């Protein structure tokens, strides 16, 4: 009888521990796949707003989102031909990205930027800096880095930046109440 009870208690304990592991926290996990000015802006508005709402924030930058985190001033040597080509063709950081629509050879993007300034909307550069101050965690997809030939030495100095793969993101997403793909 006593043994049976103890077995039941042990079973319940195991279930409770499992519950704790799988509990969604007050966290938002975002995949930033797009490298467009407008979409990245939306991602950062949500990220900074989420901190204000008391959420922990994780942004996972992958594919076209990865170049957003390049430092425009850093130069790296020793890339292979494809890497050098991608390096030249892709934007170097938040200051060089374009609108997903109405870019019109750069005119549309320039117009949008001046409009944002006039309306006091924070620029992507300011948003990224603010995200860092607010403790937004950034993860960078290692596979995208490798595909595009980016080196760690050319990425921005961000307070909380980790290079990782999909499993790390999924672990964060499993524990988040909100998950977004942008």
């Amino acid at each position, binding site marked *: 009888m006593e043994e049976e009870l103890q077995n039941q208690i042990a079973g319940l304990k195991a279930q409770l521990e499992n519950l704790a592991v799988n509990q969604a926290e007050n966290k938002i996990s975002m995949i930033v796949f797009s490298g467009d000015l407008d979409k990245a802006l939306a991602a950062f508005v949500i990220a*900074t707003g989420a901190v*204000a709402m*008391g959420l922990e924030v994780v942004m996972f930058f992958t594919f076209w989102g990865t170049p957003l985190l390049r430092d425009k001033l850093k130069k790296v040597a020793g890339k292979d031909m494809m890497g050098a080509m991608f390096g030249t063709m892709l934007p170097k950081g938040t200051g060089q990205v374009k609108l997903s629509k109405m870019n019109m050879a750069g005119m549309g993007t320039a117009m949008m930027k001046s409009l944002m300034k006039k309306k*006091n909307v*924070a620029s992507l550069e300011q948003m990224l800096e603010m995200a860092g101050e607010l403790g937004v965690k950034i993860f960078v997809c290692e596979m995208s880095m490798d595909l595009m030939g980016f080196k760690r030495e050319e990425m921005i100095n961000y307070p909380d930046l980790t290079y990782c793969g999909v499993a790390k993101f999924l672990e964060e997403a499993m524990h988040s109440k909100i998950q977004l793909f942008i």
Partner: protein
Amino acid sequence: MEEIKVDKVMDLKGLPCPMPVVKVSKGIKEVQVGQVIEAITTDPGALADFPAWARTSGNEILKTDQGDGVIKIYIKRDK
């Protein structure tokens, strides 16, 4: 109605989303529990955003005043 005693005034005029709630969520930590912030904003979205923020963060909107394109929101720090 009883006059609200304001402990901190935050001028957020001209700042669009998400700055008003980002700034107030920082500012509320600079007053004591029970003290009141007067947030002055020109963002019409604040009328929906501040109550949502207050409910989520466990603070309280005491009063909202509107006029001349300026919105004044009085927020009490509850925790």
